[in-house]
């Protein structure tokens, strides 16, 4: 058993063909780990499909197969999507279902009315949002609820009073460092920073973000090796190339980090034998880090990639077509790299 060679030199390129093949093969190797992660299956398809869109190959997965699978995840009792047939409906899987159906141009095949009701029912009077009827609260769910309703064109169905409470709740999750946490009192974390800045964007309340303060905090997430971490004094991880980068793009300060160093870090985390991107160079790859690595590269202007919308984490072309685009700034697409 030899340790895999890591690819960290700066002349490494993005191996698009290999990553497409990796995504196509995701369902082929059904080992135990595959079955143990069925609670993430629908999210996994969204990650794979979005990655394929970013690489300019939206037809990578079998369209009808994907649509049928999404429909098979419907939890009729809840009125929402679960992550796999027989699993309970939850906002986490529901957003993925909506995103996949929009990318496959099949949104008319889901029960938009019932999904909308499920999402509206998640908003509590104090502006917090639950993930399902069991009631877990997290600003991730705030974002998911708003993003889903917005993608369905139903954002205006949130009563004004609840809309105000949601905004107030997000404000309570804001910390002195400019970042946001899961719930009021919780420490700032890049993942929660993204969901809160994107949620405020969807509600057209970007004015509540302290741009210089949050921009500084986000730019300090970059470590000397080029990778980004999620909180002060933590290790770098490719997935923060999305959570931090999308946030800093939403506030228009992408130039506050070192682009080339981050690009090289993400490229170095590729598996150049079997495809896919890992959390950091030399580790096992997965589709989660593959999409967020690619999405980060897209925001950084890596050549040959399609634009990604940092608020919705979906192809920018599609978001523009739906007339949902909010203010943000990505870096100019390069014609070659390095």
């Amino acid at each position, binding site marked *: 058993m030899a*340790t*895999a060679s890591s690819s960290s030199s700066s002349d490494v390129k993005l191996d698009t063909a290999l990553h497409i093949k990796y995504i196509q093969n995701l369902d082929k190797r059904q*080992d135990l780990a595959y079955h143990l992660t069925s609670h993430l*299956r629908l999210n996994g398809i969204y990650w794979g499909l979005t990655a394929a869109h970013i690489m300019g190959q939206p037809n990578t997965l079998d369209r009808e197969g994907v649509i049928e699978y999404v429909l098979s995840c419907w939890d009729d009792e809840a009125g929402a999507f*679960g992550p796999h047939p*027989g699993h309970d409906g939850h906002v986490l899987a529901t957003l993925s279902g909506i995103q996949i159906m929009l990318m496959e141009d099949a949104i008319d095949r889901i029960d938009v009315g019932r999904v909308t009701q499920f999402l509206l029912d998640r908003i509590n009077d104090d502006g917090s949002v639950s993930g399902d009827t069991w009631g877990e609260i997290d600003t991730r769910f705030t974002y998911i609820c708003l993003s889903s309703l917005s993608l369905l064109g139903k954002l205006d169905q949130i009563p004004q009073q609840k809309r105000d409470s949601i905004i107030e709740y997000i404000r309570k999750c804001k*910390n002195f460092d400019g970042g946001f946490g899961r719930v009021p009192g*919780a420490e700032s974390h890049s993942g929660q920073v993204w969901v809160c800045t994107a949620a405020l964007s969807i509600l057209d309340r970007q004015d509540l973000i302290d741009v210089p303060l949050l921009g500084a905090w986000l730019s300090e997430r970059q470590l000397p090796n080029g990778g980004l971490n999620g909180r002060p004094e933590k290790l770098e991880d490719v997935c923060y190339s999305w959570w931090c980068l999308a946030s800093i793009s939403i506030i228009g300060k992408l130039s506050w980090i*070192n682009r080339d*160093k981050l690009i090289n870090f993400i490229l170095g985390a590729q598996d150049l034998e079997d495809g896919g991107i890992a959390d950091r160079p030399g580790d096992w790859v997965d589709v989660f880090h593959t999409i967020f690595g690619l999405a980060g590269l897209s925001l950084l202007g890596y050549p040959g990639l399609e634009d990604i919308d940092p608020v919705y984490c979906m192809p920018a072309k599609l978001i523009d077509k739906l007339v949902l685009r909010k203010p943000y700034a990505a870096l100019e697409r390069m014609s070659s790299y390095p």
Partner: protein
Amino acid sequence: MVGQLSVHGIKRSRITPQAAEAKKLKEQSKIEAYLALEADVLGRKRSKDHTTDSLGQTTKLLDLNPEFYTIWNFRRNILLTLFPTLISDEVVAHLTSDLRLTTSYLLVHPKVYWIWNHRKWCLESVPDGPGESVKWKEEFWKGELKLVEKMLDADSRNFHAWDYRRYVLASLPVQRPLTDELKYTQSKIESNFSNFSAWHCRTKTLAAIWEKEQTPEAEIRRTKDQEFELVTQALWTDPNDQSGWLYHRWLVGSEPPLEVLNREIKNIKDLYEVEPDSKWCINALAHYTLLLGQDQSTTQVDKAKLRKEAHDLYRRLEDVDPDRKNRYQEMGM
């Protein structure tokens, strides 16, 4: 590992096709057993088979996969069906055993949301009693602080554990004085100045104390002076660790008293002399110099001088920390 959807920090290794085949064969019986158990439990869920027998099956499945949230949901539905048929002692026994189960899972999977959720549900389901007392509730909640301290000893930055700690403290039937939390964060900070989670918790605790007790301004200032002493130790111990700098910035705030600002600038300048390349040191100096320039009592001449000083510090940062040079350029404008 190949079929995993999200993995963190596991080194990739190459295995030969033969080894892969052998592993697959070895795994095959495990996969079959898992799928059979999964089908059995999901079948029981569909037919709403809320029996102790089903409860036992969910334990078996969760042992193999504690992230399977649908099974946690099913487990709670079973318990909710059973509870009305049981006397309180039996309900307490069930909850005790579920807490024990989640403890054992959390020690292996400290970052799985669903396990923490189930734990919260158990605690919130503890009945009044025994008799007219609320001893069960008191006992259960007291045990939670011990658990969360154990979790934070194992990983002092685990945000699930910190969030859970805040939740437990807010839920205790008999509230602890907030000053206890100051002692706790202090012990965490002193054992590792780099623990920003503890610094963060300290900002929230102090703010909560001041709000609750309507602390007068003069006393807040006295407390802050002691905090400045604590954080100064951290800054001198490792000026390249940002945790202390962030806390320092919180202490200074947006409109600090002039003497405090001047004192802190002087202290940081002392450190800067010893650590001329510490970007955090320069960064703090630049920011506080700008703050000083905004103070009402500063004359126009001094304002211009301070702006120039800050500008020069930001120029220096462009050299010391080039990865963020665009930010420093904008800040120094």
